[in-house]
């Protein structure tokens, strides 16, 4: 055996090393080591085109009022912003920590941030990791403020629209906001004080929810 090795030329020894490494490669696995992801293009495109990946702010407000617990509401903004104001019942998971979070694949997950950009990215990340029920809050927190917290009275609205606005007024009250009827206030909504997180998080105001129901009928 020793003689066999000493009789080999350097080239043959190098060839042998390459062969051994090649055989090892058979069992060494994937060199990409989980840094790449597979995406079902069609599935993703279809859900975007069909808008089936979005939840509107009024829908979400309705779910929260009805106290539905079948979804996880994720605030993707920084912790500071989260502490300043957030939608009730949400939890704060900044975009960077998303992949390390303990979200379950079988949960219904609704993502939001100030607008749609961060939530779209988070949506793509989760979708590519095979999360099934991932949704974006359409328009994000900006639209939430605009349509739920501080809805504006429709100008020359039809009867249906006015009824709808009356309903939204109650919803706004429930979340600690205020409907805008005076046009002078609507000019600078930014000046309106946001409800503090603590007041919105404590859900003691069930009567308003009932009231809203009555008016809706």
């Amino acid at each position: 055996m020793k003689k066999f090795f000493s009789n080999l030329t350097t080239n043959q020894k190098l060839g042998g090393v390459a062969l051994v490494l090649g055989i090892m490669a058979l069992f060494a696995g994937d060199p990409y080591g989980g840094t790449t992801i597979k995406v079902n293009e069609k599935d993703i495109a279809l859900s975007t085109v069909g808008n089936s990946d979005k939840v509107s702010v009024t829908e979400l407000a309705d779910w929260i009022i009805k106290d539905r617990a079948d979804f996880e509401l994720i605030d993707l903004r920084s912790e500071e912003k989260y502490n300043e104001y957030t939608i009730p019942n949400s939890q704060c998971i900044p975009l960077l920590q998303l992949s390390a979070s303990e979200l379950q694949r079988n949960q219904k997950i609704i993502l939001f941030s100030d607008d749609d950009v961060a939530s779209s990215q988070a949506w793509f990340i989760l979708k590519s990791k095979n999360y099934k029920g991932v949704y974006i809050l359409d328009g994000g927190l900006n639209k939430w403020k605009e349509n739920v917290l501080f809805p504006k009275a429709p100008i020359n609205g039809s009867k249906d629209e006015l009824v709808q606005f009356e309903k939204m007024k109650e919803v706004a009250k429930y979340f600690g906001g205020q409907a805008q009827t005076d046009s002078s206030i609507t000019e600078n909504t930014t000046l309106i004080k946001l409800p503090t997180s603590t007041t919105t998080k404590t859900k003691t105001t069930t009567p308003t929810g009932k009231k809203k129901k009555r008016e809706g009928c």
Partner: protein
Amino acid sequence: MNAPLFKFEYFNTDVSLIIAFAIGIAFGIALEKGGFGRATILASQFYFTNMRVLKVMFTAIVTAMLGLYFLSVVGFVDLSLIYLTQTNMLPMIVGGLIAGVGFVIGGYCPGTSMVAVATGKIDAVVYVIGMVFGIFIFGEMFPSIENFFNSGFMGSVTLPAYFNLSYGFVVFLVVLMAIGAFAAAEWGEKKMAAKAGKEKQ
């Protein structure tokens, strides 16, 4: 530390150019040392009398492949950050044939011609002038061949992905292929040498 070093921003673009220059010099020296700076050696590949080009190329491929593969398996190299040339099947076959014909006629490939110019070979200077002229013709003709140039686009394909094999298996196959090629080259060289010997007698 992780590689690719540049992608992980261990140095900036300016430094990367200096490193590229150093690697380029080293590559040129390696080519010259390997005998790739002489047209006679390169051309003898096509007459099967000297298989040095095949041996050097396959050695380089296998070394780089095994190195990249195992370094990425242990997590040092992130393969997904390494640039892959995108594939246009038919245009690449045609381009490869043109380059091959040029290789046989001139006795150099673009890289080795530069090495030969550096060592002062007149034929290489002529070759490089021809190459630059060819680049000029290509540029002038480009609008009329643009459609063909962009046809058959396949994106960044790898053999494992295309044939749906595991990466490790393809590595193993390439190693087998290389060792087979080395053995065949040695055998062929001996045969050709014997034949040449007979003709002389």
